[in-house]
């Protein structure tokens, strides 16, 4: 059974409907809200599979369905749906991972009093993400994009009683908003240049050759092509949403939300949106690439931002102690990999990594959630330990996720997608620096993931809460098992034949061979795993306060990394102080300059009034007083009609109106 493109809107509409049901359910209706949300996601998953079947029937076609939203004078605002393999794969991934996270939340949020509200927000989040995916118009994409931002704000701040959670929600919202400003400007510019925001519109869309050529040949005074400038502005939005280098600071703080939310943000919905957006508008990003007289190409910027992010995230993750923070920085690092892949010209590899990463990162986060739930909300891995015995299912699935993330060869999907990215970086003819950054990040990834597993699961419990931990109910472990199976089975998408790549982009030429690079990366992974085991696995920590071996060896570097490279402090010292200074300046201007001016005018008026009054009292008043006494006595009689009751007045007006109309009708006054 296939789903035609006209009905593609059903996929985001179903979770939206579930969100509406959740919003209208009183807080007692837990079963209704949760079952509506999960049923909607399952139905959306089925529809997505149908859409996938339809899309794979002809992978090269971009099936679109456009319609006019409203006419505004001479122009019309048009929206539309787009169905191609990219859309379909994303839909299937989001709905599948989303469903499992929803089911996991049943267990994780079981004791929370705002259970129905939680499911309402989760459904809204999923609906907004699916809206981004199916949209054929940058405008609708932007609307959904902002809805994703709103839903993430609501969910990160779900426990808004905690001041850190409220602050983290605000930080996420404001930081991503900075990027969204770029996206909005890029969108407005694109509309100004092309008069439409549809991606594909039978030759007239912005991603089609005619439009791309027009955007590429016109250049700005600074030498940039218009397409480069628009691409970079839109890329700003992706930088904010996907936690890339200058704007990554919100992503680790987003851990303050409930763990299923972290899983959803990091795996399926929020951060994936940025990578998806760049992959969607890839023709535009690439338009300037073969134009050699330009000072800079959009994709080069993307590649370097991605490479910096990948390395930086991996470095910081080495020195974090909170389980969820390690995973958060690993997400930053992996997103850097995806951007790197797009930048070096292989958006297919980026989407492949996005899909595999969604599964194993959701697995890792839900596994971490399972640990945290069992250990009574203890998240510091120095205080955990020894959980491999009591939490066997969680341990085994977590280990699968860890090996997939670290890129352990052949069996795990993460290996294949990471290889695809490294090969693409190797084949890039501009610079090899991103490749070296990526290889370093590979070593570090294997290292910190080994540390995470060793500290959390091996040795003896190092706190009371960890000692009491036991396995969670099936509603939480079954999603873990399914995700772990997927983390392994997804290898089949790329091996033995690169099936996914061919479906996504049939023209993509896959790099043959590259065996030496593959050997190199396997050696690097082994190096990382070995180093992690040597430092953390061989000599197990015995109590929670024992010093970290890495911190003992390199104390200053470790402290710098543990403080997350001081980005928050840097931003507080620069942008924070700048905006405080501006605010103080505005305050001073308002208080003294404008306020002084207003006061001066007021004084002048006061003086005029004084003169006036003197003239009035002596000259004019005497005569008026006599007249007004008469008026007053007449007024007293009339004032009896003034009851002071407003309803009475209004009623009399209404009756008077009725009488008037009757008079006109009966009297025949025309």
């Amino acid at each position: 059974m296939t789903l035609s493109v006209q009905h593609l809107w059903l996929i985001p509409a179903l979770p939206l409907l579930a969100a509406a049901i959740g919003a209208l359910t009183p807080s007692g209706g837990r079963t209704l809200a949760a079952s509506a949300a999960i049923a909607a996601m399952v139905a959306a998953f089925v529809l997505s599979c149908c859409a996938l079947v339809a899309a794979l029937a002809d992978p090269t076609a971009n099936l679109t369905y456009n319609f006019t939203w409203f006419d505004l004078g001479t122009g019309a605002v048009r929206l539309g749906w787009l169905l191609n393999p990219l859309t379909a794969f994303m839909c299937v991934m989001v709905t599948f991972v989303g469903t499992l996270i929803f089911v996991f939340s049943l267990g994780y949020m079981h004791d929370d009093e705002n259970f129905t509200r939680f499911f309402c927000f989760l459904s809204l989040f999923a609906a907004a993400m699916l809206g981004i995916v199916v949209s054929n118009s940058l405008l609708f994409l932007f609307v959904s994009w902002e809805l994703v931002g709103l839903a993430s704000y609501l969910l990160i701040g779900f426990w808004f009683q905690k001041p850190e959670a409220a602050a983290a929600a605000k930080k996420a919202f404001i930081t991503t908003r900075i990027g969204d400003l770029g996206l909005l400007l890029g969108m407005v510019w694109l509309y100004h240049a092309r008069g439409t925001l549809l991606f594909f519109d039978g030759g007239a869309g912005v991603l089609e050759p005619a439009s791309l050529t027009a955007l590429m040949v016109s250049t700005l005074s600074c030498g940039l092509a218009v397409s480069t400038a628009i691409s970079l502005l839109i890329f700003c939005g992706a930088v904010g949403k996907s936690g890339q280098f200058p704007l990554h600071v919100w992503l680790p703080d987003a851990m303050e939300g409930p763990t299923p939310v972290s899983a959803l943000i990091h795996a399926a919905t929020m951060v994936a949106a940025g990578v998806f957006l760049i992959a969607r508008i890839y023709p535009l990003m690439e338009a300037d690439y073969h134009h050699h007289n330009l000072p800079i190409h959009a994709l080069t910027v993307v590649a370097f931002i991605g490479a910096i992010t990948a390395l930086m995230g991996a470095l910081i993750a080495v020195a974090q102690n909170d389980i969820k923070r390690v995973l958060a920085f690993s997400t930053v690092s992996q997103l850097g990999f995806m951007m790197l892949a797009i930048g070096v010209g292989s958006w297919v590899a980026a989407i492949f990594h996005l899909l595999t990463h969604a599964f194993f990162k959701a697995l890792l986060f839900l596994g971490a959630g399972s640990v945290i739930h069992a250990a009574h909300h203890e998240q510091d891995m120095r205080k955990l330990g020894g959980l491999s015995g009591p939490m066997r299912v969680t341990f085994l699935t977590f280990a699968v996720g860890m090996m997939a993330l670290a890129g352990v060869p052949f069996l795990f999907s993460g290996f294949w997608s990471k290889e695809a990215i490294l090969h693409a970086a190797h084949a890039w003819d501009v610079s090899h620096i991103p490749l070296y950054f990526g290889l370093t990040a590979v070593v570090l990834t294997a290292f910190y993931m080994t540390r995470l597993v060793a500290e959390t699961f091996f040795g003896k419990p190092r706190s009371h809460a960890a000692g009491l931990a036991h396995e969670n109910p099936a509603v939480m472990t079954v999603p873990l098992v399914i995700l772990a199976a997927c983390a392994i089975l997804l290898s089949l998408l790329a091996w033995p034949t690169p099936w996914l790549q061919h479906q996504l982009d049939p023209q993509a030429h896959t790099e043959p061979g590259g065996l030496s690079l593959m050997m190199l990366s396997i050696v690097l992974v082994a190096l990382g795993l070995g180093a992690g085991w040597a430092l953390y696995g061989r000599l197990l920590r015995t109590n929670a306060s024992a010093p970290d071996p890495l911190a003992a060896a390199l104390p200053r570097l470790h402290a710098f990394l543990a403080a997350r490279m001081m980005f928050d402090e840097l931003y507080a010292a620069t942008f924070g102080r700048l905006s405080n200074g501006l605010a103080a300046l505005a305050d001073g201007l308002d208080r003294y300059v404008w306020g002084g001016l207003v006061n001066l005018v007021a004084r002048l008026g006061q003086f005029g009034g004084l003169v006036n009054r003197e003239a009035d009292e002596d000259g004019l008043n005497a005569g008026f007083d006599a007249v007004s006494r008469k008026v007053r006595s007449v007024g007293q009689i009339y004032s009896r009609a003034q009851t002071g009751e407003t309803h009475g007045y209004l009623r009399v007006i209404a009756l008077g109106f009725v009488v008037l109309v009757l008079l006109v009708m009966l009297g025949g006054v025309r």
Partner: protein
Amino acid sequence: MTAALILIALLILGSTAVAMSLRNLIHSALLLVLSWMGIAAFYLWAGAEFVAFAQVLVYAGAVSMIVLFAVLLTRRSRADLSIAPASLRRAVAGVLAGGATAGVLTLAVLRTNLQIAPSAAPTVTVQQLGLELIGPQVASVLVVGVILTVALLGAVVLAASDRNDGKEDAP
């Protein structure tokens, strides 16, 4: 065409009538938002897109917010939200007056011989509207601007917490 109009009318009148008879003030205000959206739908139906957007922005967006603020600022407890029923006499008098007006208006409308244009709706683009506003109607625009400014200042003065509460009442 007419069916859509009747649907819109049912939406407007139904939500308004329920809003005006509910006990809970917040619910009334939210239902009125629905009614205002219905009125915007009517404007869309009649082909006046710009007015529909203005209606959504001003009523469903701005006025509803002011109303909600006023509701929240003027309650002291949750019980205050649900207003005690007005006295029965007042309600009956109000409905009677409303009914009388309705009857008279209906009679007037039905007895008048109104000619209508068989053609489609007159189209007016935003550009034309803009030219109209800054051309022939520019004086009105300026007057409305003054009214809005004065209303803003007046609202601020009225709602500002005056320190000399007692003085005003002295004379």
